[in-house]
């Protein structure tokens, strides 16, 4: 099992979600996040006072899939979330030891 954490532009949540549904991904968790990578923030002016906003609103999608599907899911997210501009985000992958379905104690891949 692999956990896929994708940090994407806020405007890309619907295209990514729809694309994942299309390839049969059944579950995901979506978080509203703030952060920045190489993309620096922007400045705002309120009555002449300048504020630098360097933590920019982003969307973080978390999902855990069986190892055989990882490449397909990653490619789906990348193609749906890409604009080609700086600030498109990143995807992180990590190994998951186990999973538990709370409703009925199922373990491992069958709990996904």
């Amino acid at each position, binding site marked *: 099992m692999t956990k896929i954490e994708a940090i994407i532009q806020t405007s890309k949540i619907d295209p990514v979600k729809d694309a994942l549904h299309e390839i049969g991904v059944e579950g995901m968790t979506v978080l509203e996040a703030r952060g920045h990578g190489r993309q620096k923030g922007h400045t*705002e*002016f*309120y*009555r*002449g*006072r300048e*504020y*630098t906003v360097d933590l920019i609103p982003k969307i973080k999608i978390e999902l855990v899939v069986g190892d055989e599907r990882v490449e397909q899911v990653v490619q789906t997210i990348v193609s749906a979330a890409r604009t080609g501009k700086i600030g498109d985000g990143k995807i992180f992958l990590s190994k998951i030891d186990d999973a538990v379905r709370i409703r009925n104690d199922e373990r491992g891949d069958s709990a996904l």
Partner: protein
Amino acid sequence: MQVGMAPSTSAVPDRIAALEQAAADAKGSADNSWMLASSALVLLMTGPGLALFYAGLVRRKNVLGTMMQSFAMMAAITVIWAMVGYSLAFGSGTSFIGGLHHVFLWGVGVQSDPDYSSTIPVQTFMVFQLMFAIITPALITGAFAERMKFSAMLTFLLLWSLMVYDPMAHMVWGKGGLLSASAGRFPTLDFAGGTVVHITSGVSALVCALYLGKRLGYPEEPMPPHSVVISFIGACLLWVGWFGFNAGSALSAGGLATSAFVATHFGAAAAVVGWSAAEWLKRGKPSALGAISGSVAGLVAITPASGFVSPMAALAIGLVAGVVCFWMTTSIKSRFGYDDSLDAFGVHGAGGTVGALLTGVFASSVINPIFKDAGGKALPSGAIQGNFHQIWNQLVGVVIAWVMALVGTLILLKIVDLVIGLRVPAEEEAEGLDLTQHGEEGYHWGTST
């Protein structure tokens, strides 16, 4: 002649008297209905108008504390106005302050008082003026936002209302007042409160900002408005309520009210254009906060002029006020480094002063024949008609309002500071006024379903 007409001829004088009475009653009812509506509109300016305008500009931990400062004025000033405030402002007395003839609203009934208006009940006049007495101290709260104790704020503003507002209102609008336009030693033209409301509150705001000092972390720490959306709604309500403030100051429902209504709207609109254009040129973008701040600046500046100037003069006054107040809040404030948190001085002090002086320039006897010779013939009002001396009179009114506000506020702040202490402790300021002063929070998103 027909037989049936004969008895009525003797009753003609009676019938004329009855018709005159009916006509007077009709005018009285018309005037009174507009004045009651205006009174409600002016209250709408404080709550929710000003409360929302200010609350959006603070950080989210202070949203309720900021709203409560305006709302507390709606309650506390009302009580003190009934007990003694109205009498001090509008009772007969000296040229500086009214007497105690009307304490506890003694003698303030449904009869009219010809010194103020012969067509509306004096009780209507009293409640209309009360709404002005409420919003004026509420305006000051913008200067000490996010750091003053609720108890100290309440004590200070109640004393301020008695010691600064009531004498100033008496001098300009009260019978026998020093600055009264009709009979005063220095006839100052102030239709709806450029000196009485906006200079006194704006200058007092500056004193408060200097005396209390900056908010913790200002100006290094960013303190952007927590919701310009809330401020936007508040500013729009202020604009609407201001029609009652200015057009209601005609104290009647005729042509003068229309003239003040139109001037008010044109002044506000021109100031939005002025502020936004200045911001667009200087910053590259016209902001929503800039546009709504411009409207308030224009409304402030047109207030003293509203019942004296033509629509074109109102456009000019608004345009000047928009640019001046933009410059005051963006350049002057940062140059001197005081923390007038919500720009009560930059908008009300500066806008009120600009408006009061320009009233002396643009006032016209065609709009309002306020000055008359012994034969009742209208005399020129402002410099635009050749009465350059009026600018001097306006300056006297402006200086007296500035001095009253500076001295009065400084003394009262000192007293309240010694007795109660003005600022919340540093750790409470960091935690926010909502929790530390009122024991509640404005927003519970995420924790309550």
